[in-house]
């Protein structure tokens, strides 16, 4: 909360940290507040975690390739699948969406950064350090092992001594702070920093989906934060929240977790829907079919996302009335999702479809998300769920929607926006070849898992017996990991090669529709030389092809010099990183009951907060149109 004010940032109080101004080197990355740099940091960090989670998955699949294997002990196996799930959900897929939001929301709405640039940086660092915190568990006594949803009372101190669960609870607590503040930042940005002429109903669908997602985060993360806090209290101070012998109710954890956990999957998928809603229109050369319906369905999905959580608890004995209620809400939430699929098809209908790599991934998304959605409807039937819950059928379902859905959609986004972010073009042929390995491998892994589940294979078992009919499904599934692995490596190599020596990319290589394509690739630090003005939905397309759009003429903003006095750009700062780092170290203090350390870090947090406030908004002015005038000072 700002106490200080807009100042020039060039006269810090004695003893406080100077605002750095370099643009290269490690310090410039540690102190950056540029949403584009932070977006890239998010993307690179989440891809790193994706790689780690893939390694964990690979070992899991090797272990399960044949019955009664003992490649890893049960204890290690439990850590592997727990970390795989935790990493994928919290550290890979969700932050990937955040990264795209960070990079592209300001560009798409014609703004120059997020509303609170330092807060944005803080959100990134606390995510990265929170993830690092959880991963140090492997070297500090063992990773968490109670599954990614950590059901009580398996997480109590008596049932789970050792620090693994503490890494889970404290690590996610830390990381969740970042998610929350970034969501708040994005909401303010979207409400308050849209370009002149860009009404809410002229915003790109991606921005709308991010807005809905941000609200979901605001309402969904606090219950998780409380639940994590309760378990930390149980394990550290002996409170009785989840102690059955004192009357504690393990089912309360499930309720709180899933009140968070179900909206979480919509937090993951809505940005993915947003990406698809940009890619498909661009590569069909038509506007999105049913724009208002797409927005409304997104909002409806977000809203309903809070009404379905107990479909994860159908087997816990809630009773037929509760099960019926949550079953019906879960069916209903499938309807707006189906509507979206139809609208994407309607966008392509009558178009001129180009099968560039982003489009191919988007089409794969459509295929696999429909499959995942169908198994989701099946699982929404409590009687069937009684058989399928906690089996590989569920594992197959959520991998189809999260992997085949969100991951493929984000890969479409990555290919779509790679030229914009790097100024380089990738090789379409290599990308398509890697796609086929990736896509076929993915389906080889997860389609058989439906059947393994139906044949009676529960989740989270490190081995299974011969003679139950599970062998073939597991073998094919493991074989698929090699195919998909080849695809993953090819994808990474393709990007690395393109980044190093790809052809220079144009500003608008795809003849796209939204404002990020109106500026250079990559965009300048200040995003746009001139403040863009929106005259219609698909603001950039309307500029390029005014005859094709129903644009207004923008005369309302004629003659206004929006950047009189120069474009104000935010200044870099050490405080976001410093504050995050203090929280990170403080986490270890709490973990090891090292209260002096925790308190010391708490004081650093307080001091950093004061430093941040007294540093003030700061910033400098940029004059792109005047001759060679860029830099600090005002």
């Amino acid at each position, binding site marked *: 909360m700002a106490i200080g004010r807009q100042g020039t940032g060039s006269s810090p109080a004695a003893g406080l940290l100077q605002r750095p101004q370099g643009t290269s080197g490690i310090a410039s990355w540690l102190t950056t507040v540029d949403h584009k740099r932070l977006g890239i940091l998010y993307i690179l960090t989440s891809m790193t975690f994706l790689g780690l989670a893939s390694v964990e998955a690979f070992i899991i699949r090797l272990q399960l390739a044949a019955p009664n294997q003992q490649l890893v002990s049960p204890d290690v196996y439990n850590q592997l699948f727990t970390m795989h799930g935790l990493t994928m959900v919290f550290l890979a897929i969700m932050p990937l969406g955040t990264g795209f939001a960070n990079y592209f929301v300001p560009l798409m709405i014609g703004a120059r950064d997020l509303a609170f640039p330092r807060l944005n940086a803080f959100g990134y660092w606390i995510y990265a350090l929170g993830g690092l915190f959880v991963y140090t568990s492997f070297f500090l006594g063992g990773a968490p092992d109670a599954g990614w949803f950590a059901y009580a009372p398996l997480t109590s101190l008596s049932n789970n001594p050792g620090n693994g669960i503490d890494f889970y609870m404290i690590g996610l607590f830390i990381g969740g702070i970042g998610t929350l503040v970034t969501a708040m930042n994005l909401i303010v940005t979207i409400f308050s920093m849209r370009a002149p002429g860009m009404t809410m109903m002229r915003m790109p669908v991606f921005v709308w989906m991010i807005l809905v997602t941000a609200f979901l985060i605001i309402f969904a993360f606090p219950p998780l934060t409380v639940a994590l806090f309760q378990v930390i*209290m149980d394990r550290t101070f002996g409170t009785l929240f989840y102690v059955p012998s*004192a009357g504690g109710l393990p089912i309360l954890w499930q309720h709180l977790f899933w009140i968070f956990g179900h909206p979480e999957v919509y937090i993951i998928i809505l940005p993915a829907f947003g990406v698809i809603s940009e890619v498909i229109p661009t590569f069909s050369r038509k506007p999105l079919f049913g724009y208002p319906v797409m927005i409304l369905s997104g909002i409806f999905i977000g809203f309903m996302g809070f009404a379905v959580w107990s479909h994860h608890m159908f087997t816990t004995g809630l009773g037929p009335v509760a099960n019926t209620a949550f079953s019906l809400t879960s069916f209903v939430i499938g309807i707006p999702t189906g509507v979206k699929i139809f609208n994407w098809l309607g966008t392509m209908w009558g178009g001129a479809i180009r099968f560039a790599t982003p489009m191919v991934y988007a089409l794969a998304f459509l295929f696999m998300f429909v499959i995942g959605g169908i198994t989701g409807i099946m699982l929404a039937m409590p009687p069937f769920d009684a058989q399928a819950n906690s089996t590989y059928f569920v594992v197959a379902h959520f991998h189809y929607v999260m992997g085949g859905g969100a991951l493929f959609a984000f890969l479409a986004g990555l290919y779509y926006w790679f030229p914009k972010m790097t100024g380089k073009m990738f090789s379409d042929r290599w990308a398509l070849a890697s796609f086929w390995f990736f896509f076929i491998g993915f389906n080889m892994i997860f389609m058989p898992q439906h059947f393994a589940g139906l044949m009676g294979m529960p989740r989270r078992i490190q081995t299974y017996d011969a003679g139950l009919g599970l062998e073939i499904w597991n073998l094919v599934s493991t074989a698929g990991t090699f195919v998909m692995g080849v695809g993953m490596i090819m994808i990474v190599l393709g990007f690395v090669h393109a980044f190093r020596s790809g052809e220079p990319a144009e500003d608008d290589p795809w003849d796209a529709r939204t404002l990020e394509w109106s500026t250079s690739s990559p965009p300048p630090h200040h995003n746009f030389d001139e403040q863009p003005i929106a005259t219609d939905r698909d603001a950039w397309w309307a500029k390029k092809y005014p005859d094709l759009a129903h644009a207004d003429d923008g005369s309302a903003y004629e003659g206004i010099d929006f950047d009189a006095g120069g474009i104000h750009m935010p200044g870099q700062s050490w405080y976001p990183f410093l504050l995050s780092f203090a929280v990170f170290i403080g986490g270890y203090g709490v973990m090891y009951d090292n209260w002096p350390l925790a308190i010391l870090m708490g004081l650093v947090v307080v001091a950093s907060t004061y430093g941040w406030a007294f540093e003030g908004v700061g910033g400098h002015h940029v004059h792109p149109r005047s001759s060679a005038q860029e830099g600090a000072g005002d």
Partner: protein
Amino acid sequence: MAGQAPSVGAPAPAQSHGWRSSTLPDTKLLMWIFLASDVMFFGTLIGTYLIYKGRSIVGPYPLDVLDIPLTTVSTFVLLMSSFLMVIALHALRQGNIPGFRLWTFGVAFFGAIFLGFQVYEFRHFVELGLTLDRNLFGTTFFVLTGTHGVHVAIGVLWLLSIVVASYVRPQHWQAKDATYLEVAGLYWHFVDIVWIVIFTLVYLVDFI
């Protein structure tokens, strides 16, 4: 804001730079959104308290320890602090800097008194045998009211910092900067409202 074309020349509020598509200051919007998340946060803690109500296996039980008259006084003090907050904001908006400093300090002071009551109450409960790990009542009560107390303490610190800042950098605490006090006020009022809910559900409900 929804669906309207932003009007030409919408005055960019003093705290932000460049064009704004909303007349609501950024920090104020941020605070409202933060408070929305805090509603869920406290809602979950209160929900936990209510779910575990009556499920303690051993005592002390609420009726054994809660002191309604005492807590009524501390609640009144907190309510009065919110009133002072309104006066402080009004003073700053009028440019009455001494008044703004006095009343803001008053809010912090009353908040500190409330915290004093809380500390006394917690110690008294511990003496009566109610601890964090004694029973579900102890667990849920102390975590809920303790979290609220931490929120109050942060607010007290924040308001005192504002008062100090108004001496150290007076040029930044004039009438035009009232939004920054208003934002602190929003937080403070929220914390007060949460206490009203806690007071009702934890204290009064058992006795009425």
